């Protein structure tokens, strides 16, 4: 495995973990959502790294596709968050737990 592939994979893992931590510890839904985006892009990075490693173009194509998916998610996600914000004027996720038990 080329060093650049290894480095990219390590970076990808670090990004993924950071994204995950953002989701787990932050209370602002926008930040959480950013974390998720980070995770998605970490995966994309991994695809590209593997693309280099396997010497196949597929990985880059897949990364592109997933970027499109991520974009769709952003559109939906922001809309939902905004709609919540409209009603509540504050977007602390820990305030949203009327459904439980």
């Amino acid at each position, binding site marked *: 495995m080329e060093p650049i592939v290894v480095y990219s994979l390590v970076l990808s893992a670090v990004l993924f973990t950071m994204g*995950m931590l953002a989701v*787990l510890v932050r209370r602002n839904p926008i930040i959480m959502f950013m974390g998720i985006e980070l995770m998605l892009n970490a995966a994309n990075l991994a695809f590209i790294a593997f693309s280099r490693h396997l010497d196949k173009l597929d990985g880059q194509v897949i990364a592109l596709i997933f970027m499109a998916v991520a974009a769709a998610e952003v559109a939906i996600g922001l809309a939902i968050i905004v709609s919540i914000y409209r009603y509540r004027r504050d977007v602390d996720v820990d305030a*949203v*737990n009327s459904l439980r*038990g």
Partner: protein
Amino acid sequence: MDYIYLAIALPLLGVLVNGFFGRRMPRKAVGTIASLAILGSFVVSLVAFLNYIALEGGAHTVMLLPWLSLPPLEISYGFLVDGLSLVMALTVSLVSFLIHVYSMGYMADDDGYPRYFTYLNLFVAMMLTLVLADNLVLMFVGWEGVGLCSYLLIGFWYKKAAPPAAGIKAFIVNRIGDFAFLIGIFLIFWLYGTFNFTELRQSVETVAFAGHFPLTLIALFLFGGAIGKSAQFPLYVWLPDAMEGPTPVSALIHAATMVTAGVYMVSRMSFLYSMTEVAMLVVACVGAFTAIFAGSIALVQNDIKRVLAYSTVSQLGYMFLAAGVGAYWIAIFHLFTHAFFKALLFLASGSVIHGMRGEMDMRKMGGLAKYMPHTYWHFLIGAMSISGIPLLAGFFSKDQILFAAFTTRPDIWPNAGMVLWIVGVVTALFTAFYMFRQIYLVFLTKPRFDEAEIHPHEAPSSMVTPNWILAIGSVLAGYIGLPALFAGIIHMPNAFQPFVSGALAGGAHVAEAAHGAQELFKEVLTTSISVVVALLGLGLAFYLYQVRYGVTEKLKRAFAAPYRVLLNKYYVDEFYDSTFVQPGRVLCEQLSRVVDLGIIDGVVNAIAFVVGAVGQVLRPIQTGFIRNYAWYMGAGAILLVILLWLGLGAK
């Protein structure tokens, strides 16, 4: 006689008629139908008897229908006609008929008149089933059937508290005996493969398991049934209580017929008993002990019927004593004579109670001889007969029992005969004493009731007439089975023994015994002692209750402790109550409360509760917080990866 089952069918018909229409018919008709049905039974038995004599000992079986047929198990409605069953059938139907007639007078004013006669007819049918059955299981049907009738009739006056309780006691104590009886039945089937008496006898005698342990076991278990039904120690306790029933019922069921079923059964199974000395000895010892035990209780009882009840227990003990020493025919003979005089005594006491408006305490009687002379004579004849006053029926039968005991020498305990005889003689003394004590207290001493208040009167003829017939029987019944000694003197051969012996085993040595001169001497000796003892008892009663009337009070004080023990019947009822009944009740309640509702249901409910509680405890994990959920997912992802890697490691 192929129509012997009519003897059972007729009373059953009476049951149906009176049971369904009794309440809509006039009383006279009910009683008449019931009595006629029994008379029919008697006639059928009599015809069968004559037929049997004409056939010269042709014992035969009448098959009616199969009942339980599961080869190899074959049980049918089959009736065995032989000397033994005919004697029983005749005795039962005759005494029953007389008591039916008596009851028509005695129960004339009772509300439950039709019900009474329905039960009584049912009883006779069942009793005849018992004695005529050709196999053990059908016999058991009759056995339980009479028990049922006994239960129903003891509790006949169900509005009062005591009679139903006494009925239950009788039924349950009997069932304890039946439990043993059933086990005996099961053992027999798996050992011999049949319940039929004839076949059973053949296989027992040919397979010859003599002295074999299972055989002894069978005999003892069957005897367990007899102990219950015939009120022997330790299961006699129900019989005195059974006196709560109407007096004719006491006379019929609890004196003359049903309670002797055990003796009949042992005699019927004599081929089996005579194979096992141990069982025989047990039978004899239980009989002897019961005889003296019950006789001693009877000495001090004050209730007119209770004395007779204990006397019955005691006399039944005699019968088992006879059977236990191998003198089966004498046992049956005593059963036969006892049926007359004990029925007579009960009916006479019934007349007394009737005339005294239900008073049963002898301490409140006295001097009744002048008010009810017939009854006095009846009672006197019965008392003399049972006490063994010479030349009356009871004398001959009891005398032969004592003689048979005297001469028996079982291998395992050679002196048993002597011991049994001594016990028997002492019991005879007791018998004579308590019977004449009763005569004095009831009929001869000064009246101890308010003569202005109560006007004792003689019973109506419907009650007196049957009693006279029974009285005649009590005098003469003994003459058909005279002991060799007397038979020789008056040239009247013993007809009874050969007639029934065909159905019985053993007993041969008794018959032989009479031949030798030494044996004759022994017989004279024992007979004399019996006579002396009987007179002694009579004399003692005369002395205590007539000559020195009132001395008994001093005696009671002088011997306070023994007197109290006897009066309280050795505290056996109290013992049973505190040892079995009360702990049993507590056990049931504890089982129901602690085990059933507490433990078993508790475990079930606890499982349900724990599941529910876990569900409740887990609910907070569903916090509703998104970040918690995300944590679960993160942890889950790690868990998943670890689980996958575990597989890797395992490889």
